């Protein structure tokens, strides 16, 4: 039996075969070393929700804290996140951070805003001078399952 040295082409082909076969293994290693149970979209959605709530419930929102008509139409309905940002100019300033928009769009991220004024709760007595701001963010995860998280804040008027 005659033996010969492998040519360079054969070595490259062998390496390619091994490399391609290793891709699933590499993905397993990568995911195994990512120690968190959170996806990029969940982190982004939480960032969006808390940021919108801080802006809506903050003292500088809108003219004299008044809500624009465009914004009022969006209350208590599931709307695309970008529609909320467009509805009030004070929300859109330097927001969202670069690179976040495409990720939020990709996962059909939606916002639901609720403003209860006055906020009524049996433990709060008869006075009606408390407002509740609630922002719910929903998105489709990588398996297409809808998820959501709520941020809320009471404001003592």
């Amino acid at each position, binding site marked *: 039996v005659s*033996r*010969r*040295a*492998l040519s360079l082409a*054969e*070595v490259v082909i*062998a*390496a390619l075969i*091994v*490399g391609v076969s*290793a891709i699933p293994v*590499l*993905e397993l*290693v*990568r*995911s*195994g*070393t*990512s*120690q*968190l*149970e*959170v996806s*990029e979209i969940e*982190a*982004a959605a*939480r*960032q969006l929700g*808390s*940021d919108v*709530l*801080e802006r809506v419930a903050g003292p500088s929102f809108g003219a004299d804290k008044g809500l624009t008509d465009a914004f009022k139409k969006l209350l208590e309905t599931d709307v695309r996140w970008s529609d909320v940002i467009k509805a009030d100019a004070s929300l859109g300033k330097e927001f969202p951070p670069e690179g976040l928009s495409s990720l939020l769009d990709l996962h059909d991220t939606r916002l639901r805003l609720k403003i209860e004024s006055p*906020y009524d*709760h049996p*433990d*709060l*007595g*008869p*006075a009606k*001078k*408390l407002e*509740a701001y*609630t922002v719910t963010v929903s998105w489709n995860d990588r398996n297409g399952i809808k998820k959501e*998280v*709520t*941020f*809320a*804040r*009471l*404001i*003592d*008027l």
Partner: protein
Amino acid sequence: LRASSICRNRAGIGAMVAFVLWVVTIALVYALMVGQSQSGALTGVVRVTGMRMVVLAGQSALAEASYVLRHPSNGKSTVLEGMRTGSAAGKAHDPTATRKLYTAEVSAGRLTVEPVMYEVAKRPAKDGDPYLIDLTVRVTAVFAGVKITRQLRRRMLGELAQVHALLGPSAGKVVLAALSVHGRPLFEVVEP
């Protein structure tokens, strides 16, 4: 001649095995680095978003407690009772309204909002001068394996009005007391 040919063949196979091993090793190290860097980046985002939920829930609980303090049912509050009896600290309010707003997180064990506590930070030297009252709440959020606990403190300015009986068996004793708390807090801070 044949012996040198076999040696050359073995050297060729050895080189190929070494090359493949080198490629696989580099790829595994790269995958490990990518995994670790993604973990690091996501850990940062998780901490920031978890911290935001802690702060928002804490601010909400403090707003609820200061509201109850300013508008007490039947004019009575635990803080007023505490101040009258000389207690410098105690439970001010159980923030059930805030917990209700965060029902999903609270019931899943991802968010804990403890009762709001009060502490008289400064008593006035003479009657009629304002008290400094601190309201504090501890909030814990657990998100993706990261646990974040912070205490939020809000300092309020309050004035205690007391009516003393002049005549009868209660002469000299306080028969009516009311605590008036200013709407705007002096400050609000997040503490470790």
